[in-house]
């Protein structure tokens, strides 16, 4: 008996800077309880790309996060987390290039310690310098379509607008702006930050985004490996749904059963 095949997304894979990524889910490693859990999370998520931060060496540390990524054939995406100026972010990117041998960078320039929202002026400055220097820049930015367009114009390979503040798990607070960004940008749009649960990731894809980046929602879940699998399915569901075409929203009901041919039931109340 022939095996029945479920339809797969025809949109093809996520391609950033000419590189085909095997998944629309990017995993952030921040908050992972152990390297062993990370290994299982990477497998369950199906991710092809995962972020790491750059921090001072710990002479006592055993095992490297890079070894885990390498074993799972997951590409390293260094971030510039913790940078508050363009100069800090540019130096951090150059250190990451030297340390990991990649010119890819998830560019973060934070403007406020409490909300960790991006400083778009510093971000644009850093993005322009790094693009000119040959980096493949994926900037973490606000949910502002104009900022996203400016980042694309200076040469960014993708844009990563936030759904909500980092680690807040509040989901996509401004779906209309995210949809506008997805519509107006010709580079891939990957929603970053604020994703709390897999349905948020599905929404991102349904809004027209090309991918989702998830860290805390997986790494700090009660069962991170199970959650990683849930996100894998959620992203796939969103991509399929976007392509399948949702129904329009209506104010009133529209019967799904036909009115025609209904029996005349002469039932009088007792």
């Amino acid at each position: 008996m022939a095996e029945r095949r479920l339809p797969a997304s025809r949109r093809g894979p996520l391609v950033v800077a000419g590189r085909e990524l095997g998944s629309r889910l990017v995993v952030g490693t921040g908050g992972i309880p152990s390297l062993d859990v990370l290994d299982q999370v990477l497998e369950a998520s199906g991710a092809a790309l995962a972020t790491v931060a750059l921090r001072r060496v710990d002479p006592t540390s055993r095992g490297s996060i890079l070894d885990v990524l390498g074993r799972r054939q997951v590409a390293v995406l260094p971030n510039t987390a913790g940078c508050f100026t363009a100069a800090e972010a540019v130096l951090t990117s150059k250190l990451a290039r030297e340390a990991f041998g990649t010119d890819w960078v998830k560019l973060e320039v934070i403007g406020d310690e409490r909300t960790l929202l991006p400083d778009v002026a510093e971000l644009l400055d850093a993005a322009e310098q790094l693009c000119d220097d040959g980096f493949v820049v994926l900037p973490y930015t606000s949910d502002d379509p104009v900022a996203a367009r400016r980042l694309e114009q200076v040469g960014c390979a993708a844009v990563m607008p936030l759904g909500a503040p980092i680690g807040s798990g509040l989901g996509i607070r401004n779906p209309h702006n995210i949809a506008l960004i997805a519509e107006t940008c010709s580079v891939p749009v990957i929603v970053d930050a604020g994703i709390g649960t897999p349905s948020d990731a599905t929404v991102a894809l349904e809004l027209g985004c090309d991918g989702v980046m998830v860290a805390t929602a997986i790494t700090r879940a009660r069962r991170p490996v199970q959650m990683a699998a849930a996100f894998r399915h959620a992203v796939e569901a969103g991509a399929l749904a976007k392509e399948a075409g949702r129904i329009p929203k209506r104010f009133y009901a529209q019967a799904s059963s036909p009115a025609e041919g209904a029996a005349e039931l002469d039932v009088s109340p007792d």
Partner: protein
Amino acid sequence: MIDVTVNGNQEHLSATTTVADVVVRFCPSPDGVAVARNGDVVPKSAWPSTAVRSGDRLEIVTAAAGG
């Protein structure tokens, strides 16, 4: 001897120390490591030939779990 700052700590090192020597001393492995000296990247290829001077600030960084 010279006094340098390595990852925020004061270190008393031999006057002939190079960046490569410092990396060997402070890192379990040089893989996945980068060095900034006084705010500039020192490429790996230049570690053995880059002398550390008194008052230098060195930052030695590697991958950590992060967003």
